[in-house]
């Protein structure tokens, strides 16, 4: 596993997140959407926290040699990471795990999710737009300020959001016009340049998509699988893939602390995932 000391070249304070840009050319070339980097989040002389923090990469650009991390200060060590001054050399390793697998014939890509794996969708959106795909991104969070801001995305991306948590995510995916009771499903940003073809309200993004990449936590797997089963006549392998957030203590396949139960037996999130075919999970 390659280890790097990467200088922090840009830090942007957002409402709820901090966007960090690191200069890491080799890593930027190697990373795929859905993969993770393991970042040491303690001062040089400190051992607390001892373990690195696993962060889904929010972007990687070979041309500039930069990778981007969207840091939400929810875990011990992450406030320290988010507060580092420009020039700080961050100690990290990666890429960890398997990323999303884009089919060669995919034209319409649906991205949807909630929680700590959402940065993987931002990376996937940028990557897909660069490949000329039509991209729709659906994200739900507990509040507006917890949503990634639209300017992190290329203008071609159709970006819809909900501030009502995971409950509304599957309504958005299925294209249900009625939001869950007492909750509001809002369109955060109109498409500046709508991809062709694009579903309108009343149509199912799921029916439109050639593939769907999800960002989930494990409790949402069953509902995600049910949504896909209900909304699709055919559900081929790799059609629906899920980046699963959860503990990744070592990121090396050593600690066995990130098991995921699949239809093929137990797998490790850090080696076999964090992106899994949803058919194996649900």
């Amino acid at each position, binding site marked *: 596993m390659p*280890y790097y000391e990467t200088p922090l070249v840009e830090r942007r304070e957002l409402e709820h997140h901090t966007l960090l840009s690191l200069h890491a050319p080799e890593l930027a070339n190697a990373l795929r959407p859905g993969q993770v980097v393991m970042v040491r989040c303690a001062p040089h002389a400190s051992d*607390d926290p*001892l*373990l690195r923090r696993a962060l889904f990469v929010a972007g990687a650009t070979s041309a500039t040699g930069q990778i981007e991390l969207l840091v939400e200060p929810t875990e011990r060590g992450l406030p320290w990471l988010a507060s580092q001054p420009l020039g700080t050399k961050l100690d990290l*390793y990666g890429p960890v795990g398997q990323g999303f697998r884009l089919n060669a014939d995919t034209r319409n890509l649906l991205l949807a999710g909630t929680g700590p794996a959402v940065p993987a969708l931002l990376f996937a959106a940028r990557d897909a737009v660069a490949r000329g795909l039509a991209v729709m991104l659906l994200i739900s969070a507990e509040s507006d300020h917890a949503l990634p801001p639209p300017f992190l995305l290329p203008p071609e991306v159709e970006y819809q959001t909900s501030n009502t948590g995971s409950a509304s995510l599957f309504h958005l995916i299925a294209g249900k016009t009625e939001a869950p009771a007492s909750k509001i499903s809002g369109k955060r940003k109109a498409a500046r340049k709508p991809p062709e073809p694009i579903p309108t309200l009343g149509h199912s993004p799921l029916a439109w998509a050639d593939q769907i990449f999800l960002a989930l936590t494990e409790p949402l797997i069953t509902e995600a699988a049910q949504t896909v089963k209900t909304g699709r006549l055919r559900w081929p392998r790799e059609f629906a893939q899920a980046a699963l957030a959860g503990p990744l*203590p070592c990121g*090396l396949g050593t*600690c066995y*602390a990130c098991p995921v139960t699949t239809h093929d037996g137990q797998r490790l999130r850090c080696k076999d995932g964090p992106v899994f075919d949803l058919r194996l999970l649900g």
Partner: protein
Amino acid sequence: MADLTVEVCGLRFRNPVLPAAGPNVRDGRMLTEAAHGGAGGLVAKTISVDAAPVPMPHMAEVRGSMLNTELWSEMPPERWLSYEYAVARRAADEAGIPLILSLGYSGEEIAQLAPLVRPWADAVELSTHYLGEDATPMIQAIAAAKAALDVPVFVKMSPLGREMRAAARAAQDAGADAIVATNSLGPAFGLDIETGYPLLGGSDGYGWLSGPAIKPLSVRCVYDIAQAVDLPIIGVGGVNRGEDAVEFLMAGASLVQVCTAAIIRGSTVYGKIASQLGDWLDQHGYPSPHAIRGLAIKKTVP
């Protein structure tokens, strides 16, 4: 510039920083990475007569340290004998460093395993982790290894549950050639307060503490053992940086082993710690690790 080479039991190590037997050296590939990462010698993960079960999860972070319920190799000994040891041997030969093979646990098991591993071993390390407080099973294990092998036999001790000086004397009397101190500390126990479940898998959720938190305990054990026996000592427990190695050497160790730091920082950590040790020796005017070995005992013991 300090000469980091160390000779222990007739084996020449290119520096005093080795991997400890654990998940950081769980197969031939990881041993090869350790050699490439600058380890002064190689120590393979402990094997026993059967593959170990793998409780999930078997590692968890506690503040400043780690809990593990790591047992011995989850690969059967046949796999090591047919493939992994050959890969490790090749890596050791290419780097010009010794290869130490860790075996567990009882006299009967050691008698079975020792002749089988001999073709690859420059030395063996016996784990006494599950042998309890009575020294008799450890003595039987040493006797079995000595009877089967013509290479040095190191004995690795757990930090609690036995009086270290007496245990080290018993190991020396039984014919051990070096003492490795210490194994991880436990049993320990931690809870996920959100769920109320233990942090670790396994039948009872028990584990062992490793990492920086156990270093003072391990250094004390090395310090005690160094005053009790004339054998070389290999210090292990919370070695994270060069200064930690200095501390173990001053307490009486000839070599140090590293596990948790390698899990967290990767296989290049061995070379980094060795380099930091070299820098420290240079800055303080010492020509070699040997020059500081047991310095604390010379200063503190009349």
